[in-house]
């Protein structure tokens, strides 16, 4: 199994990708190495890795119930790392060496694009603090005594779907006009048959290709600005976790299709203007020119536990958007309810009595 390690040319320390740049840095001697330079070294590293017998995939030795696990041994220190079969990038827990299992991203498994991390870990921690701010019903103990169990920078595998949506839609619409004379009120309803057809293009609708990561959590992190995506280079993975996809594009397609169809229908319905009522009779969407690409997108996963419940937060490693559901303080909920009710009741009862006089 081919593994890539990015070592500092100065001190042989493990290089890590520096968010928001095209450089890698050595945390020991502060050397900065450009990714362009490392690209040239990739071929050499590939050769070294393939010559090494130490790095071996030993999945067939696992017992029943342990399928899907793989054993890796670190070339630097010889330590053994047990990981999921989809594991693509990690660090050795014994020597801290950053490794990329390049075979997880080669051939048909090679991602087309990657959005490099722009936000660093410290900013992710600060974002968590900001996430707590202004939440009056968040338990004070959770806010004050909460400690992060773990913060992980992960490149999550996504499928990006392009498609042209061909829409044919028919609507029943009405225009209502009202007037009165000295004897009657009149309501005139004019009925129309409205037809629309045309196309609408969609680019890079993302669908999470990892089974382990909650799809709703990933969708909450959108949008990712895919125009900032770059061609995949394994160097970007150094210092972060990365998994290869374990949900294929075909399985993800229905989710993209569902979202594209809804948006296409809404876009065409928005062209039916000037009516009092609009009721769809038929809204057909056919997708053509579809194309799928494989990308790795940057996500920080932060977890914390409180009262035996694990809370998982995620941050978009490109835009800094932070999401994660928080616990409810029921006492604070009712305290605020009665506080608001009390103030509103006093004011409204007083006004009602003045008006009732």
């Amino acid at each position, binding site marked *: 199994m081919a593994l890539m390690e990015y070592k500092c040319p100065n001190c042989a320390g493990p290089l890590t990708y520096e968010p928001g740049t095209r450089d890698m840095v050595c945390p020991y001697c502060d050397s900065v190495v450009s990714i362009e330079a490392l690209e040239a070294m990739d071929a050499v590293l590939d050769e070294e890795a393939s010559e090494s017998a130490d790095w071996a995939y030993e999945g067939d030795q696992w017992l029943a119930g342990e399928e899907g696990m793989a054993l890796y041994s670190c070339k630097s220190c010889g330590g053994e790392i047990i990981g999921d079969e989809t594991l693509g990038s990690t660090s050795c827990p014994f020597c801290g060496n950053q490794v990329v299992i390049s075979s997880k991203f080669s051939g048909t498994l090679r991602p087309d694009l990657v959005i490099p991390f722009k936000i660093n870990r410290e900013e992710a921690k600060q974002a968590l603090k900001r996430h707590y701010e202004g939440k009056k019903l*968040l338990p004070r103990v959770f806010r004050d005594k909460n400690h992060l169990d773990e913060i992980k920078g992960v490149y999550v595998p996504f499928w990006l779907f392009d498609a042209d949506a061909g829409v044919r839609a028919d609507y029943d619409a009405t225009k209502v006009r009202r007037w009165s004379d000295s004897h009657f*009120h009149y309501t005139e309803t004019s009925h129309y048959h409205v037809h629309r057809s045309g196309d*609408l*293009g969609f680019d890079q609708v993302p669908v999470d290709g990892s089974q382990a990561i909650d799809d709703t959590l990933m969708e909450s992190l959108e949008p990712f600005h895919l125009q900032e995506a770059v061609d995949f280079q394994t160097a970007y993975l150094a210092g972060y976790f990365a998994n290869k996809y374990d949900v294929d594009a075909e399985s993800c397609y229905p989710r993209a299709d569902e979202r594209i169809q809804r948006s296409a229908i809404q876009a065409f319905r928005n062209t039916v203007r000037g009516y009092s009522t609009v009721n769809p009779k038929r809204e057909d969407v056919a997708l053509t020119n579809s194309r799928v690409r494989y990308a790795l997108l940057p996500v920080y996963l932060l977890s914390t536990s409180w009262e035996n419940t694990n809370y998982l937060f995620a941050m978009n490693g490109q835009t800094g958007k932070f999401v994660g559901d928080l616990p409810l303080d029921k006492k604070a909920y009712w305290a605020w309810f009665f506080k608001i009710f009390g103030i509103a009741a006093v004011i409204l009862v007083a*006004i009602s009595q003045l008006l009732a006089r």
Partner: protein
Amino acid sequence: MNTFSTFTIFILQAAGSPDLGSRLTAGIIALVIALLIALIGVSGMKGKLKSVKKQQMANQYVREGSMNLKAQNDLFTHKQVVKRPRAERTENKG
């Protein structure tokens, strides 16, 4: 406590007045509105705790300038007119 004491004073005052019914009705309506305001207020605060939501649409991935409306027909089919008599004004006498 403020609410309760205000309401008690209002009841005691209203009991002595001839338009007790209308004042009681107004007071009860005010309390119901206050209850709704409190419910909306805490629901808003509770909603702030939830940020994980499924995306329903793909609007942000629409290709710029790709909307191509090939056919656009608005065909009038028919109309109907409903008339209802105006309510006659009743004059108060006496």
